[in-house]
């Protein structure tokens, strides 16, 4: 068990791309940590640099209390599960799980015993003699996890752990993964481009873009108070409304309406107003943003209603099923108190306190 620390860590590829750019990060012992971002943001490179598969160009990687920056991947006590699981097709499940022990020249009976015990704890009991090709995607993933945890690694790294599973299996595997991580209590870092996955699994999330961390926080913080408009856009299954607004002496002028201003910014400051569709409610006759219902999208238990405001901007809000307004009707939507976020118009950084 160990914490991970990077200090000024940069990984530059031979073609000059700075995939990871001067990163300072601390991941606590036993934490389930997500690296989240769009493709090409450097999250996988960061994971691979922690693993030692990529060489850090600057800065250090510390695992436990040892500087591992130049250590061979095989000596870092780090286990990794790849996106494609990387199971050896010519070995049985038992041989795959015991492979790290085989490399370390443990005696055969000991290999077998560990394989059996690990397989049992990951409900792979009856599959020990099968080949990976004979297993379902979910079972293959569990074999890869079993191989990773068969040896006592300090850190577990997962590259896109759920992306190769179909949608139904993915939810099941997500729950399984979260329970396994809590049971083992092993420091775990995983990479994902799926914000829902990161929110569901992680204790803390680092949202990355262009090799830098845009926000670091708990799922609640990242979802509720995105640090900038990039994160605001990226997190949430329905995108956050980001509208142009102005601070006036009467309040916040946005989309043709005046809302109570959440800040004491000077008048006439131009801002970007952010509010999640989930934090907006229909308020007949109340104080809010008025618009015409243009589309209603069914999300199952709720619907995403899009309003067209007088100034032409679009505002999305979620409404409980059977409460959807008629298309073409004029309604008023009011944000929940404290849920309106103001961002700097230029930099996109969060302004309101």
């Amino acid at each position: 068990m160990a914490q991970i620390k990077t200090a000024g860590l940069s990984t530059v590829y031979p073609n000059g791309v700075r995939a990871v750019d001067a990163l300072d990060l601390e991941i606590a012992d036993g934490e389930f940590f997500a690296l989240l971002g769009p493709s090409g943001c450097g999250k996988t490179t960061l994971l691979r640099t922690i693993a030692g598969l990529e060489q850090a160009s600057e800065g250090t990687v510390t695992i436990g209390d040892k500087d591992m920056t130049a250590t061979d991947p095989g000596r870092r006590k780090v286990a990794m599960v790849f996106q494609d699981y990387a199971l050896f097709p010519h070995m049985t499940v038992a041989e795959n799980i015991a492979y790290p022990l085989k490399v370390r020249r443990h005696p055969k009976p000991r290999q077998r015993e560990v394989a059996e015990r690990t397989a049992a704890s990951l409900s792979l009991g009856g599959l020990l003699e099968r080949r990976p090709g004979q297993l379902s995607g979910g079972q293959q993933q569990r074999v890869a996890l079993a191989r990773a945890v068969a040896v006592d690694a300090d850190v577990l790294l997962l590259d896109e752990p759920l992306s190769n599973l179909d949608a139904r299996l993915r939810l099941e595997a997500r729950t399984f993964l979260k329970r396994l991580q809590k049971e083992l209590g092993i420091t775990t870092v995983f990479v994902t481009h799926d914000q829902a996955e990161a929110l569901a699994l992680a204790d803390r999330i680092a949202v990355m873009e262009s090799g830098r961390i845009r926000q670091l926080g708990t799922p609640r913080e990242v979802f509720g108070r995105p640090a900038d408009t990039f994160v605001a856009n990226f997190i949430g299954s329905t995108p956050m409304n980001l509208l142009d607004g102005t601070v006036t002496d009467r309040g916040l002028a946005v989309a043709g309406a005046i809302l109570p201003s959440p800040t004491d910014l000077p008048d006439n400051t131009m801002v970007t107003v952010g509010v999640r569709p989930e934090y907006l409610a229909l308020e007949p006759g109340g104080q809010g943003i008025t618009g015409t219902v243009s589309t209603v999208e069914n999300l199952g238990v709720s619907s995403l209603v899009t309003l067209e405001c007088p100034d032409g901007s679009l505002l999305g809000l979620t409404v409980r099923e059977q409460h959807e307004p008629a298309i073409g009707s004029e309604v008023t939507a009011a944000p929940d108190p404290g849920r309106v976020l103001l961002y700097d118009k230029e930099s996109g950084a969060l302004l309101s306190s």
Partner: protein
Amino acid sequence: MRATDSAGLGRGRALAFVAPALVLIGIFLVFPALWSIYIGLTDYALTGPSSVNPRLVGTGNITGALSDPLFGNSLWLTLLFVFGSALIGQNVLGFTLAWSLRGARRGLRRLVEGLVLLAWILPSTVVAYLWVAVLDRDGGTLNALLNTPGTAWLVQYPMASLIVFNLWRGTAFSMLLYSSALNVVPPSQLETARMVGAGRFSTLKDVVFPHIRGHVLTNTLLISLWTANDFTPFLLTSGGPDHRSETLPVFIYQQALGSGALGYASAISLLLLLVNLVIALVYLRLLRRRG
């Protein structure tokens, strides 16, 4: 006539189309093969009475060959040649080149591949002449490089020279085949081996070879057969000195056109064919026993 084939030609016209090719194959492949099997059963010779009136000797040529120390010598040298230059030499060197060039820079990779390929695509006569020049006793390049004046490589070490020559000549094929075979190995599996601290040997044994087993067998089969039937040694040593580099193809040539014993040479050709067949069958057996 109603056409029953997919091209709609009808049997007659279809036959007319393939007939020229079949005739050519018949004249230049099937007939000579059958003819050489037939004269292998006779004492047919280039000169003398049996060139006019060959006698049937049945299996006499075969039994004669099996008790001929020169045939035994050639068979042994052929096996040595195949084992040393193909089975071990080209295989190992080709794989080593392919494996170590995997991560190399593009320019370096192209350069090495180009040089190795050059040895492969040059005509045999040119290559043989080059090597005669390199290995020459007086003024040979190798003697100048190694500072070993007066060493007649092709006379003193004929078989070793041939093995090294064939290694140089044929490695390109193995290298190319293994280069593309190695692309089959998923990088994540190599990295998994790296993460658990597997060394180079166990990575090759546990991860790489199981993936390219089929390629290894196919490559070994092809280069073994090519080497066993290779006639280029004749251009370097003519089988000498004193039969010390007389592999079977050279032996057959010497018997047929040197001694004029066409019947005997044909019988030995048949034996060489059988040797090839045995090699091929062994590989096919191994290939079928997969995983």
